[in-house]
């Protein structure tokens, strides 16, 4: 039965399409990484060539690391991303649980209201957000970014997680209630582990735009000590001269942490762990 679905021709075709897509998707990243190891002349001479011993140059990396604050930028990006992710997942999952589990007046309306954020970009409210941050004295703090990114990530998180939570066995939650577990224990110990794959999906979709964002760091937190890595890399892009070695090196380095986070979540994504809860 298993064999019938795996004719060699179909499997080759599927793999060819997937490999082609992978190559297209990874090509820009690949170009950035190889060029970050080349001298300036070699970058412009042949951008697609691999770094050879004669044009191998780490000047980009030494410039970036010598810039001094680069480690701080990394740390800022990491703090902002991880903190935002934590709050998006926590509040998103809690809201999704309430929407999917409890019957109350205005449940559907509340769900629609929370999903509205998916359709309306948060950047439309930039001016108001800036005024708000100025008024509350949060300009040039990481807190400002965490707050904005949490608001930005919540709609999609609530939307995806409430769909998944509807599918968690009601019997399991009810069994917990009869055994005397509190609603919090049911949420954290029974429901959350079962929606872990969905949480990982939400985490990946939430994390990447936050890590890559230039807009809000530029507007809300441009000060040296709270700059994120994306904003920090911009110092090498000038109006008249751009230090390509440094820009490419900075971008290459910026890929690493997000890659690590992605690998952590994708392992969860793959591990389906609902087995045993219900038939």
């Amino acid at each position, binding site marked *: 039965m298993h064999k019938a679905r795996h004719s060699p021709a179909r499997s080759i075709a599927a793999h060819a399409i997937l490999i082609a897509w992978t190559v297209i998707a990874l090509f820009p990243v690949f170009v950035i990484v190889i060029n970050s190891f080349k001298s300036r002349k070699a970058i412009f001479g042949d951008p697609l060539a691999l770094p050879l011993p004669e044009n191998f140059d780490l000047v980009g990396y030494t410039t970036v690391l010598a810039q001094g604050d680069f480690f701080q930028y990394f740390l800022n990006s990491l703090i902002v991303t991880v903190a935002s992710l934590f709050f998006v997942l926590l509040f998103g999952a809690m809201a999704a649980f309430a929407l999917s589990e409890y*019957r109350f007046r205005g449940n559907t309306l509340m769900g629609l209201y929370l999903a509205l954020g998916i359709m309306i970009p948060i950047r439309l409210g930039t001016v108001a957000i800036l005024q708000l941050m100025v008024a509350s004295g949060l300009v040039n703090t990481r807190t400002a970014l965490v707050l904005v990114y949490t608001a930005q990530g919540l709609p999609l998180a609530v939307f995806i997680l409430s769909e998944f939570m509807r599918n968690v066995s009601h019997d*399991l939650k009810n069994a917990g209630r*009869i055994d005397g577990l509190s609603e919090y224990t049911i949420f954290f*110990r029974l429901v959350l582990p079962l929606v872990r794959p969905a949480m990982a999906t939400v985490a990946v979709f939430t994390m990447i735009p936050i890590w890559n964002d230039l807009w809000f760091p530029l507007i809300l937190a441009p000060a040296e000590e709270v700059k994120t890595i994306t904003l920090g890399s911009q110092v090498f892009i000038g109006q008249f001269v751009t230090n390509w070695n440094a820009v490419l090196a900075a971008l290459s380095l910026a890929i690493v942490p997000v890659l690590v986070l992605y690998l952590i979540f994708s392992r969860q994504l793959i591990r389906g762990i609902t087995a045993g*809860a219900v*038939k």
Partner: protein
Amino acid sequence: MGALTLSNVTKSFGKTDVIKGVSLEVSEGEFCVFVGPSGCGKSTLLRMIAGLEDVTSGDVILDGARINDLAPAKREIAMVFQTYALYPHLTVRDNMGLALKQAGVARAEIIAATDKAAAMLSLQPLMDRRPAELSGGQRQRVAIGRAIVRRPKLFLFDEPLSNLDAALRVATRIEIARLHRELNATTIYVTHDQVEAMTLADKIVVLRAGLVEQVGRPMDLYNDPDNTFVAGFIGSPQMNFLKSGLLGLSSETVGIRPEHLTLHPGGGQIRGRVNHVERLGGETLVYVTTVQHGMLTVRMFGEHNYDVDADIGVDFDAAHLFHFDAAGKRLR
């Protein structure tokens, strides 16, 4: 311990009335089965007794105390679910002992209680496994064990056999009957399968569209149904319904069990054609299509041979007829 009274209990979701006023007495140690077609409200009624659904109006009384507003965990009940609902992250022992742990019972006592329940269900070799490592039948035994460990006033079963295969269903049914004899605990059991209801129950409650149609012992319902619904629902194969007027009787419809019809190839009061024959070894079911009364089922013991499409006559024993009026009510 464990007498349950429902007095005029109702449940509405918004404008929809799901339970439309149910009054019921379940005495101590009784095995009571709620049976009815899907959507009749039997599971909702069970969840209301468990405290998982609010009661819109009326009283749920357990051992003389009104428990309407008590949290499920405080009601001293235990429930077994159709989908087993075991905690996937806990071992069999921890699954069974969780309720006691939540209630603050000492560890040694929990171990003693779980061991005792495990012995009753022969679960000892599985105590350190997780639910994922168990088969369907084993999981349901663990779920039953989890209910036993609590020593509840009231056992609630929500279609516990629906997810098991046929052989396991019979075995688990016998096991539940044995446990009930040993523990002698008040039990409420929900099923849509009238065979389960007939074989397990001391008392059957037949529900339809949120109302109780009839309450009684299995044989009382079988031999003395109040209306066409109960007559048709209890018993398999279903009771045959004939039009009285065509038979010269005064009622609207008459019902007769398949075993009280006889076949006569040459004669018989009702003529028809053999539609299908099911030979089950111990018994033979013959389905006869008649012009006036539709399809009739005839049940005979032993093996019989009839040709499909052959003309045949059906006779009935007037002593076994049930008379019903136009609304389906029994005329006695």
